């Protein structure tokens, strides 16, 4: 059983559409990160959220950390083909020095 479940697992949309990816857990995290990974490359850190209810924006990407720090969402507005990739959430817990990746969401944006 994965500690962090992402949904959907796969997503294929047309250019210009909006989408939301969810990262859910029953556990509380000290911080949560979102990464994007393009084929054949390593994950690239997009954002870190640490405060319950926190919202961060990165151009067309909006990240939110749940009030209870157990879940997060990533919303992309007007998706572009360059947004294609594997999106990974990851949570850190300072108790026991633990770090967990989510199950991943593979996004394809069709021109």
């Amino acid at each position, binding site marked *: 059983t994965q500690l962090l479940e992402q949904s959907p697992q796969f997503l294929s949309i047309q250019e210009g559409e909006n989408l939301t990816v969810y990262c859910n857990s029953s556990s509380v*995290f*000290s*911080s949560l*990160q979102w*990464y994007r990974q393009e084929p*054949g*490359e*390593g*994950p*690239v*850190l997009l954002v*870190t959220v640490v405060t319950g209810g926190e919202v961060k924006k990165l151009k067309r990407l909006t990240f939110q950390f749940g009030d209870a720090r157990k879940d997060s969402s990533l919303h992309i507005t007007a998706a572009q083909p360059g947004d294609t990739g*594997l999106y*990974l959430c*990851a949570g*850190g*817990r*300072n108790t026991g*020095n*633990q*770090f967990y*990746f*989510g*199950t*991943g969401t*593979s996004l394809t944006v069709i021109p």
Partner: protein
Amino acid sequence: DAMVIQNPRYQVTQFGKPVTLSCSQTLNHNVMYWYQQKSSQAPKLLFHYYDKDFNNEADTPDNFQSRRPNTSFCFLDIRSPGLGDAAMYLCATSRDQAYYEQYFGPGTRLTVT
């Protein structure tokens, strides 16, 4: 630019022939990690070094070993690669404890023939 560098980007080895993958970092981070990733799955942590302290994940096979001779370099040794070890191997660093952001290298794609 400060970064995490992995060499080689692509490695082909034969079944059972030892192979070493290398990672270097210019971030001066205390923690270095090795992950295994298979097609479109999340990376799976193999082990990490907090400074010189080695931390092995419970389910990491004995076939995988690691060395960190200094702060900047870390190596992944696969003693007898099997076909199931073909994967992308990712090196990552973090400034301090595991819950800080991790910064990844570009990965080494390992093929076992």
